[in-house]
């Protein structure tokens, strides 16, 4: 066999197991999910075709969908905006060649390794109304205990706070990597012109890394839009208190695995997918542009 054909044959064999996995666990589920979204199916009786009913019900007949969309929007904004602002500042602080910076970075990035489940359980302890750290600290100033996780609006605020705590290290890693690519000469020139530290950060560093900033914005939106683990463990499987933290991913989980309405849940998944697809296309564009910049 000639070498070119031999290499082509090896190539097919090397890809085969991987391709099989991607086909079975990614491509097929994608197609099957679309098919299911036009069915009514509880897994135990045969599915029945219902046309676009699932989609119509979502947009016209289900008040919970509206609540979930609103909560997801609030949660996404409440996570992404603070995350980007805080991580810009943190990345700016960490982007220095000073003694001990390696240790500061290692500690600041530590939450990256902690699972959402542990984060949520630990923060429940911090938020606990009777014995939580936050209410103890508030009591020092004579402020009455705040129902962090038991009142709907506070619960959403608490959820955003934890989500920001969890997302900042991730965003900082990406922003710091971008900041390290900004040439020192630019800063040097501005320093000679008398620009202060903050001024240089705002007018040189941030504009130079705006590609990375947008990348972080889009990817944080994608993550927040689908948030599940944190919500499920922090405030419960039904998005309580009341519907205070009832987000789209919780609704999907509930419709599919509590109410066994797999068709309806699949329609919801495709509505979410449509939004995510737009965001992902933007993200891929940005990451390609980033790659060109570097």
């Amino acid at each position, binding site marked *: 066999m000639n070498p070119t054909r031999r290499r082509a044959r090896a190539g097919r064999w090397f890809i085969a197991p991987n391709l099989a996995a991607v086909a079975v666990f990614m491509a097929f589920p994608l197609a099957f999910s679309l098919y299911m979204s036009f069915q009514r199916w509880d897994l135990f009786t045969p599915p029945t075709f219902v046309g676009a009913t699932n989609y119509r019900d979502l947009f016209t007949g289900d008040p919970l969908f509206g609540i979930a969309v609103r909560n997801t929007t609030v949660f996404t904004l409440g996570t992404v905006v603070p995350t980007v602002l805080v991580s810009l500042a943190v990345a700016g602080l960490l982007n220095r060649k000073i003694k001990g910076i390696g240790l500061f970075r290692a500690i600041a990035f530590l939450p990256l390794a902690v699972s959402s489940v542990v984060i949520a359980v630990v923060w429940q302890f911090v938020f606990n109304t009777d014995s939580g750290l936050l209410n103890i600290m508030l009591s020092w100033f004579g402020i009455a205990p705040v129902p962090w996780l038991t009142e709907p609006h506070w619960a959403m605020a608490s959820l955003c706070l934890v989500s920001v705590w969890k997302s900042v290290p991730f965003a900082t*890693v990406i922003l710091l990597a971008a900041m390290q690519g900004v040439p020192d000469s630019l800063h040097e020139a501005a320093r000679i012109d008398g620009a202060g530290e903050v001024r240089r950060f705002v007018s040189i560093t941030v504009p130079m890394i705006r590609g990375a900033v947008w990348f972080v914005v889009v990817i944080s939106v994608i993550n927040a839009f689908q948030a599940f683990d944190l919500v499920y463990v922090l405030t419960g499987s039904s998005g309580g208190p009341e519907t205070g933290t009832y987000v789209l991913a919780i609704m999907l989980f509930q419709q599919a695995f509590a109410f066994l309405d797999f068709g309806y849940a699949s329609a919801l998944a495709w509505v979410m997918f449509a939004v995510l697809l737009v965001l992902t296309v933007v993200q891929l564009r940005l990451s390609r542009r980033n790659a060109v910049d570097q």
Partner: protein
Amino acid sequence: MSSPPARHRIAGLLGVYAGLGAVTACALFPILWALSGSLKRQAEISQPMLLPAHPQWSNYVEVFARMPFWRMLFNTVLYAGCVTAGQVFFCSLAGYAFARLPFTGRDTLFVLYLATLMVPLTVTVIPQFILMRVFGWTDTMWAMIIPGLFGSAFGTYLMRQFFATLPIDLEEAAILDGCSPWAIYWRILLPHAKPAVMVLAVLTWINVWNDFLWPLLMIQRKGIATLTLGLVWMQGEYVAEWPVLMAASMLMLAPLVIIYAIAQRAFVSGIAATGFGGR
């Protein structure tokens, strides 16, 4: 005005250290508070001291009594280990082929791979759940291992991009000598791919270790449960028993903190390079 006076510089440096101190304090305080809580008595948990007078190590003993911790640790290591080994092997093999072994339709196939990167878990999780039921794998270890074992589009993409940056001369002599593609992959290219392999391995390991939704859907038996699942079950069972719950959280955190300490560089650079992981 070429350089500011030394006094200003020192003040500025102090400011930077104060800022860095605040950042690390914010990152650490919930974890330290939990650590402190794990050593308190139930009656002490509403007291603000960080170091309890008599650390209650018995809270940790209590965790082992209430959940099969070692069994769950073993399960988690087994799942993470199998999936990580499988991902590294099958993704690097496919990535090598996509980068270096041309065949008809290869590039079209790669574009399709890229397209599946855009498919979120949100869409695939329900059909994957149904697949597992059809295969009869729900509530078995297979459900935790097989879906991730043979590689993923993300890992293949990562490895392919890395192999594409390696100089072609690395393998040229071997090709002329008539080495098989397998020998070239195994003896020449894979050893050179260590940085990319580390990134993929660490991201995969931490992903599987921290995964919650999939074990939640798949597993009911304690004997095959993961640590994250064990913690959530405990949280549901022992409401407000904070010392024991915090001790369990700390036990879950410890292995990952050790891995993070060892592989921090690969982990952080992997996230910086790909934008994946750390969700």
